[in-house]
C-alpha cells in the first residue's frame, strides 16, 4: 500500500510539473545585471567594415513601410561612411503577446538591436537593464533639441533623468464622432464643455436610437487599451493625480479616481456604453469597426453602433481610412462625415486632448553596435523615412519639421492633429503601469457587469492595485 501511495504521488507530481512547468522554468539569469550602459560611444568601424543590425517589428503596416524605408536609410548611412545592413524581423502579434516575446528576447543573449513599442513599457524594461542609455547621443543630436515636441521629450525621460528611448511617432487621442449620424438624429455636434453636457448629449442620442451612444474602452479584454485609450482620458478630466513623483508611489485612492469610476458607472447605468461588446474577447471589433461604421461589409446594420468613440489619430488611416490600410473603411471619412471633440472634464470649460508618443524606438543594452543603431534611429526619425513611416499607420510626426514632406504632407487631418501636440494633456508611465492597467481593467469590468457602482469600483481598484503592486508601492490621498 505504501509503495502504491508513493508511486501515485510521484506520478501525479511528474505530470503536474510537465503541465505547468513552463511557467516556472525560465533560465534564472540575473536579467539586466550583465549589460553595461552604452552611453560611451563605441569605436566606429571603418567604411569597409559591414555592420549588421537586427530590427524587430510587430505590426504589419509598419513592417510593410519599413521594407521600403530601410533601404533608403542604408543608402543614407553609407553616404555618411557607415556600412550598415539592417535585417528586419517580423513578429506580427498583438501587443500583449509581443510584450511577452520581447521580454523573453531581452533575457537571451541576442535580442534585436532595435525595436519599438508603447512608451508605457519603457520604464519596466529600462529599470530591468534591457535598454541602452542613449542620453548623451540624444541630447547631442541637434534635431532632438530643436525639433522634437517637448511633451514627447519629457515623456521619454525616465525617473532617473536618463533617456532609454526615442519617440517613433506622436499621437493625439480625442473623441471621434460620426457627424452625419448625430446630424441625422438632431444631436448637436458642437464641442461639449463638461461631463454633464456630454452625458446629456449621449442620453438624447440613446433616447432616439435605443443603442449605446459612446465607446470608451473598459474591462479586461481590451488589455492596456482600457487604460491608454479610455480610463486615463476620463481621469485626466478630474484634476486628480495618479502617481506621486515626490514619494514614487502610485495613488490608488483619491477623489479623482472615485469621480472617474463614477463617470463610467453613470454611462453604464444609462445604457450608453456597449457593455456586451466591450466584454467580447476582441472588443475593438464590434465597437470600433463594425460599430462605429454601423454596417458590416455586406451592408447589414450592426445592433451596436456607438457613433462616438475615443480614438487616436491612427483612426483616420489604420482603422477607418481607405483600403487596403484601413481595417474598416468609412466612405467619405475625409469629407466631413467624421469629426472630433476634445475630451470634456468634470469641471466646465476645461477641455483637453491627449498628447503623447505612439511607440518608442529603443536600442538593446546588449547591442554590439549602439552607434550604428542610433544612427539608424536618427535616419528613421528624419525627413522622408519618417514621413513615410508615420503616414503608413496614420500617426503624427514627433517633430515639427516634417509637415512639408510627402506622403505626410498630403494628410491635412493628421497635420491638424499634430498642432495639438503642443497643448495636449498627458500622463507619464512609471514602473508598475502594467499593474495599474490591470486593476483599471478589473474595476471597470465590474461596472460593465453591473456588479459594482462607481464607489465600489473605486474601492475594488484600490484593492486590486495594492495587491498587484504591493502595499509599499501605493498610497491614498
Amino acid at each position, binding site marked *: *500500500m505504501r509503495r*502504491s*501511495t508513493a*508511486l*501515485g*504521488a510521484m*506520478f*501525479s*507530481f*511528474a*505530470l*503536474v*510539473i*510537465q*503541465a*505547468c*512547468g513552463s*511557467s*516556472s*522554468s*525560465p533560465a*534564472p539569469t*540575473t*536579467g*539586466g*545585471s550583465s549589460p553595461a550602459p552604452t552611453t560611451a560611444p563605441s569605436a566606429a568601424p571603418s567604411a569597409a567594415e559591414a555592420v549588421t543590425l537586427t530590427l524587430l517589428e510587430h505590426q504589419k503596416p509598419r513592417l510593410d513601410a519599413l521594407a521600403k524605408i530601410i533601404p533608403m536609410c542604408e543608402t543614407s548611412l553609407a553616404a555618411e561612411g557607415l556600412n550598415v545592413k539592417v535585417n528586419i524581423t517580423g513578429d506580427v502579434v498583438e501587443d*500583449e503577446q509581443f510584450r*511577452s516575446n520581447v*521580454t*523573453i528576447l531581452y*533575457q537571451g543573449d541576442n535580442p534585436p538591436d532595435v525595436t519599438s513599442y508603447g512608451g508605457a513599457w519603457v*520604464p*519596466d524594461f529600462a*529599470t*530591468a*537593464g*534591457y535598454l541602452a542609455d542613449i542620453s548623451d547621443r540624444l541630447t547631442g543630436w541637434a534635431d532632438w533639441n530643436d525639433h522634437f515636441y517637448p511633451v514627447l521629450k519629457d515623456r521619454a525621460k525616465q525617473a532617473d533623468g536618463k533617456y532609454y528611448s526615442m519617440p517613433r511617432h506622436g499621437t493625439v487621442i480625442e473623441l471621434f464622432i460620426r457627424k452625419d449620424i448625430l446630424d441625422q438624429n438632431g444631436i448637436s455636434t458642437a464641442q461639449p464643455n463638461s461631463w454633464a453636457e456630454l452625458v446629456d448629449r449621449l442620453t438624447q442620442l440613446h433616447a432616439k436610437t435605443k443603442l449605446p451612444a459612446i465607446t470608451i474602452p473598459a*474591462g*479586461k*479584454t481590451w488589455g492596456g487599451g482600457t487604460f491608454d485609450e479610455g480610463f486615463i482620458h476620463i481621469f485626466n478630466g478630474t484634476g486628480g493625480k495618479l502617481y506621486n513623483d515626490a514619494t514614487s508611489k502610485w495613488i490608488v485612492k483619491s477623489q479623482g479616481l472615485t469621480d472617474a469610476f463614477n463617470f463610467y458607472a453613470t454611462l453604464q447605468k444609462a445604457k450608453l456604453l456597449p457593455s*456586451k461588446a466591450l*466584454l*467580447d*474577447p476582441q472588443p475593438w471589433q464590434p465597437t470600433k469597426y463594425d460599430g462605429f461604421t454601423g454596417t458590416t461589409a455586406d451592408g447589414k446594420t450592426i*445592433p451596436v453602433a456607438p457613433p462616438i468613440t475615443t480614438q487616436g489619430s491612427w483612426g483616420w488611416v489604420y482603422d477607418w481610412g481607405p483600403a487596403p490600410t484601413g481595417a474598416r473603411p468609412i466612405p467619405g471619412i475625409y469629407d466631413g462625415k467624421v469629426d472630433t471633440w476634445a475630451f470634456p472634464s468634470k469641471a466646465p470649460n476645461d477641455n483637453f486632448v491627449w498628447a503623447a508618443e505612439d511607440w518608442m524606438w529603443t536600442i538593446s543594452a546588449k547591442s554590439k553596435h549602439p552607434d550604428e543603431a542610433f544612427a539608424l534611429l536618427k535616419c528613421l526619425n528624419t525627413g522622408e523615412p519618417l514621413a513615410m513611416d508615420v503616414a503608413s499607420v496614420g500617426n503624427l510626426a514627433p517633430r515639427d519639421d516634417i509637415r512639408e514632406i510627402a506622403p505626410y504632407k498630403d494628410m491635412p487631418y493628421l497635420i491638424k492633429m499634430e498642432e495639438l501636440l503642443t497643448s495636449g494633456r498627458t500622463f507619464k508611465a512609471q*514602473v*508598475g503601469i*502594467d*499593474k495599474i492597467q*490591470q486593476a483599471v481593467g*478589473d474595476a471597470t*469590468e*465590474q461596472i*460593465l*457587469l453591473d*456588479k459594482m457602482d462607481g464607489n465600489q469600483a473605486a474601492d475594488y481598484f484600490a*484593492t*486590486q492595485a495594492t*495587491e*498587484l503592486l504591493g502595499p509599499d508601492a501605493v498610497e491614498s490621498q
Partner: protein
Amino acid sequence: MVAGFLAPSLALILVFVVAPVVWAVVLSFTNWKLTGPGAQHPELVGFANYGRLAGSQAFRDAFARTVVFVIFSAMVGQFLLGLGSALVLHRRDVRLKSLWSAAILLPLVVPETVAAFAWASMLESSGEGTLNRIVGLAGVEPIAWLQQHAILAIIVVNTWRGIAFAMILFAAALEGVPQEVNEAAVVDGASPRQLLTRITLPLIKHAIVLYMLLTTIGTVTVFGLIYFLTRGGPGGETTTLSIFVYERAFRFFEIGLGSAASVIMLGVVLGFGLIYVRLLRAQI
C-alpha cells in the same frame, strides 16, 4: 542490465521533470522578476511569496474556482458521461457502435486551439452563434454565454473534451471484466443496478482510480481552452490557478510569485492523488 534500460528514461525525467521542479521550488523563494528593478538583483525572500499568495483574495478565489472546475467538469461530467458511454457501447445490442465511438472520440483528436475557436463560435453572443440560433428557435433572445454563464460554459467545454479519454479507459477496463462473473450474478438474481454497483464498478476500480488521478491533474492544469475562450473573465469568474500562474509569471513577469503559485498547484494535485489512492485503497 535493467538499470541500463531504465537509464535513458531516468535521465530524461531528471533533466526535464525533476530539475525544473527543483528549480521552480528554488525560484519560489526569490523575488525574481523579468521586468522592473527586481530583474537586476533577485534576492532570496524566504516564504514571502507564499505569504503574499495566502493573503491574496485573487489567489484564494482562483483556488476555489479550480476546485469547482475540477469537481464538476472532471469528477462529475467527464467521469459520469465517459463511464456511461463506455457501459452503453459495451452492450452487444447497440447498433452503429463504431459511429457512436467515432463521434465521442472526435473531441480528443481536435487540437485544443481549434476546439476553443469552435466553441467560441458556438457560444458567440450575437444571434449568429450556433447555440443562440438553436435557442432562438424557441423564441429565446441571444444569450452572451461566455459572459453570463462563463464558468458553466468552460465546465461544459472541458467535459466535452474529456469524455473520450474517460470512455477509452473505461471501455478497456470493461473488456477485462470476466463475462462469467456477470452471468453468475444474473443467475443468482442480481438486478442490472446490482450488477453495476456490486460487480462491474468494483472490478474496474483500478481504472477508476487511475482515471481520477489523471483527469484531476489534467483539469487543474487546463489553460488553453479557458484562455482562448474567456481569458479568465469576465470579472475573473474563470480565472483558475493555471490562468493565475500565467498572469503573474508571463503578464507581470513575477517569476518568483508565479513559481510559488505553481508549487502550490503541485501540492494540490499531490493532495488529490494521495486522497484517491487512500480512499479507494487501490493498487496502481
